[in-house]
């Protein structure tokens, strides 16, 4: 009964979204304001009925109504209520419902907040967001099954079968009989990292639909001035903030849960989330040039369009966070439909772009190669290069199978080897860019600003090259340290760090000189009244810290595996601190909160440099319903490194057990850097009263500037 109601709400949302899109389009075309108003109300109604659908789905999940297929797939009776709620995004159909709901909320926010300032753009924004939404809703409302018999009549049996399957692909599909119990949620997903990771990722994904909608609206109505750029900058930043958080939490989850001592494996699911982030980041940089100099207008459009396509593509691959490969794409009718939608929207946007090229003429030219514009171009090239490498590596298995008949795997070594140097160059441009003024600069002046950063970077690199301990460490077996790239990379990081510090110092000093306020309040005011710029620098600082951790874990990581009898111990040498000794004390059965989980933990005594530092309990959880074991790593954290231990197996009731131990140098800088990164983004995105006032002042000032220039 409740499931029927939910299904009706879903269908209603689908129909309303199509109605809103058509009404907005026709109303704008014929200048019928009532129709546009009706479309706006339609957007609200879609959000309302989707909220109802989500609410009902949650009720079904909580009440273990296993007659509903989705509920039976992702929950069981033994699961804690909390996980039953999060199971909403634990499977395909549910996560698409959740995605659509978020999309509807974002669309509502965009339409309502833009109603006053960007009235002329809103109808097309409604068209784009509601059509996107309608596509997603069509997938989970079973309407594609209607195509099955016409396709069959045309003799396309495979297509007909795929479409007929779509009937069951709705979160409200009801089985003929009620199973006694459900399958339960994938154990890997029962972790708070996996609970907040998908919502963050989806918020990032749906967020990127809004800039695309505004871009298409601006293009099709030829309002390609400053208006849309100003509107979408904040939307893009919001989407980007969520996507960044989603990626970071995903890494944190992988590190804490997957139990292989790593946080990024370059698998298709991760890549699918990374790719729109890369193109989105490129856009965030190049859009600054459009704002300041009126250049790269076509390019910015292209970036928004690529990002949107990647978001749609990525939504499918990451739909539930369960590990899957590109090949999983074709397992049901959903894959071909997604591919068709991506193709249709991409071709449509390219056509629109070409039809409107004239309105995207550049207002300025590049004045000099030694200018911020030139560096930003380089930055864009690097982001796009990393995107392309990632894209190519992700689809290569499919391509190679097609051409050579042999499937190939493209693993982390490929991505690290190709993207590693590109990331290093990116850090370099990140360091230089703030020193480059717009338009042009004299080399002499640039040199003056470069003195300290370059000096600091060189000292770091040379110091690391000659320092004997690093070289000793590189000769130890089992290390993957290569001195030259590591020293270079750390030199680059120090260079960038000094540039950022210098920028803060220059700003504070200038303020101090002019206003005579104390350095501390000068700093706080500086950031407060230049949120975008100094927020950006904070983000860069976060990136430097993240890079510190990434290089640490990639090059300085140590690992060992031993089978230990009780009382025996293994040693592992840390490159930064002392030697750890891990002694196996015995195996215990522990209880965990959930009743369907049995935990077996090993007790380990840890000493470092002879000093006792604590007990660690790596464990294996056995999920009874799924008959699936999961390793639970135990960690000893410090700012220098983590000692990360997993229990790989045991024999004879725990008389002997096998352990894998990792020393993960600087890994916590990654998480701390992530927090700085997010804080910086929040600083840049947060609107303030003062900023609004400043915008007004700046607008009049730029008017003066234009007058002065001509």
């Amino acid at each position, binding site marked *: 009964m409740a499931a029927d109601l939910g299904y009706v709400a879903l269908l209603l949302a689908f129909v309303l979204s199509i109605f809103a899109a058509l009404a907005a389009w026709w109303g704008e075309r014929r200048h019928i304001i009532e129709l546009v108003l009706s479309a706006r109300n339609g957007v609200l109604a879609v959000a309302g009925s989707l909220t109802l659908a989500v609410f009902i789905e949650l009720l079904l999940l909580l009440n273990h109504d296993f007659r509903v297929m989705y509920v039976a797939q992702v929950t069981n009776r033994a699961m804690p209520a909390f996980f039953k709620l999060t199971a909403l995004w634990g499977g395909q159909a549910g996560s698409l419902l959740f995605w659509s709901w978020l999309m509807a909320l974002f669309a509502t926010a965009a339409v309502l907040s833009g109603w006053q300032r960007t009235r002329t753009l809103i109808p097309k924004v409604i068209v784009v967001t509601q059509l996107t939404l309608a596509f997603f809703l069509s997938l989970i409302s079973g309407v594609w099954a209607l195509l099955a018999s016409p396709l069959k009549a045309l003799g396309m049996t495979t297509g007909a079968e795929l479409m007929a399957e779509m009937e069951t692909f709705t979160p409200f599909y009801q089985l003929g009989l009620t199973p006694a119990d459900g399958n339960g949620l994938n154990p890997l997903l029962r972790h708070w990292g996996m609970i907040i990771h998908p919502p963050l990722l989806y918020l990032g994904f749906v967020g990127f639909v809004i800039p695309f909608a505004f871009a298409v609206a601006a293009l099709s109505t030829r309002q390609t001035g400053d208006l849309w750029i100003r509107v979408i900058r904040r939307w893009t930043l919001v989407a980007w903030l969520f996507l960044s958080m989603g990626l970071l939490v995903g890494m944190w989850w992988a590190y804490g849960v997957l139990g292989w001592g790593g946080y990024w494996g370059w698998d298709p699911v991760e890549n699918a989330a990374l790719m729109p982030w890369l193109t989105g980041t490129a856009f965030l940089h190049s859009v600054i040039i459009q704002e300041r100099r009126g250049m790269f207008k076509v390019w910015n459009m292209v970036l928004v369009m690529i990002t949107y396509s990647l978001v749609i593509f990525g939504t499918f691959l990451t739909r539930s966070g369960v590990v899957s490969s590109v090949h999983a794409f074709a397992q049901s009718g959903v894959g071909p439909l997604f591919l068709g939608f991506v193709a249709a929207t991409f071709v449509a946007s390219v056509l629109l772009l070409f039809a409107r*090229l*004239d309105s995207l003429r550049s207002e300025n*030219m590049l004045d000099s190669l030694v200018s911020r514009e030139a560096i930003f171009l380089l930055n864009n090239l690097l982001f*796009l290069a990393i995107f392309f490498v990632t894209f190519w590596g992700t689809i290569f298995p*499919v391509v190679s199978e097609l051409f050579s008949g042999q499937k190939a795997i493209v693993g982390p070594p490929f991505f690290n080897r190709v993207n590693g140097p590109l990331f290093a160059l990116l850090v370099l441009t990140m360091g230089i860019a703030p020193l480059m003024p717009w338009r042009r600069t004299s080399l002499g002046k640039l040199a003056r600003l470069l003195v300290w950063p370059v000096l600091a970077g060189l000292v770091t690199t040379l110091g690391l090259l000659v320092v004997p301990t690093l070289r000793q460490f590189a000769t130890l077996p089992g290390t993957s340290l290569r001195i030259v790239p590591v020293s270079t990379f750390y030199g680059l990081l120090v260079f960038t760090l000094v540039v950022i510090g210098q920028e803060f110092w220059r700003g504070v000093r200038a303020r101090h000189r002019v206003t005579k306020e104390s350095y501390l309040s000068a700093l706080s005011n500086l950031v407060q009244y230049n949120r975008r710029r100094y927020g950006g620098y904070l983000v860069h600082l976060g990136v430097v810290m993240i890079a510190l951790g990434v290089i640490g874990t990639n090059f300085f990581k140590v690992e060992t595996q031993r089978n230990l009898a009780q009382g025996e111990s293994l040693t592992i040498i840390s490159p930064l601190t002392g030697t750890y000794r891990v002694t196996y004390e015995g195996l215990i059965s522990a209880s965990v909160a959930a009743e369907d989980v049995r935990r077996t933990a090993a007790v380990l005594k840890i000493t470092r440099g002879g000093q006792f530092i604590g007990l660690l309990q790596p464990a294996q959880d056995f999920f009874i319903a799924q008959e699936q074991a999961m390793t639970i790593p135990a960690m000893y954290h410090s700012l220098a490194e983590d000692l990360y231990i997993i229990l790989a197996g045991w024999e004879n009731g725990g008389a002997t057990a096998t352990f894998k131990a990792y020393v993960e140098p600087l890994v916590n800088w990654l998480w701390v850097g992530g927090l700085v990164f997010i804080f910086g983004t929040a600083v840049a995105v947060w609107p303030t009263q003062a900023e609004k006032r400043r915008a007004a002042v700046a607008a009049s000032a730029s008017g003066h500037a234009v007058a002065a220039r001509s």
Partner: protein
Amino acid sequence: MAGMTAGNPLTSSPARPHPAGQRLIWLIVVLALVGTLLGLLALGLQPRTSATLQGKPAPPFEIAAINGEFVGQRFSSADLRGHVVVLNIWASWCIECAREASILERAWRAYRPRGVWFIGVDYLDTDTAALAYLKRFEITYPNGADIGSRIYQAYRATGVPETFFIDHDGIVQHVQIGPIGQAQLHALLDRLLTKDVSQP
């Protein structure tokens, strides 16, 4: 890199409008690039499952037997033409395979006199583990390693076990995904054998 190309119209200066012909060429180039890419993906992502082999000629295979009376002998699709062949892809680590192992062996003993060949293709296994498995289930029909996983790929298998029933003419008549039961196996073999008798 389609995007990079699309960005190229930037090159035109503000002073000169885009010549229509040049723009059309760019449009065609961009659409062609995007089309190729999407076409590739669409082709590559097409379902290639073993089930689609039904009614089609069996892809060629060759194994070197590692067990029992056939040790060292090679068996290929060409040699076995004219016989009914049951090609079973299995692995020692596969739990479902163990469920059908003795059923297959019994059927082999029953149908060998009638000219049916059973061929075991050992997928992703070490020889030690494979031999232990064959010994455990006392399997006597020829089994060999799938070198380079070529047979698995050629037959578009989606997992183990999968069993292919090939008739006298080398056509795949039935694809069994997952373990097979005794009744179904015998019925299939009887059908294949009678069908061939009726065809001169």
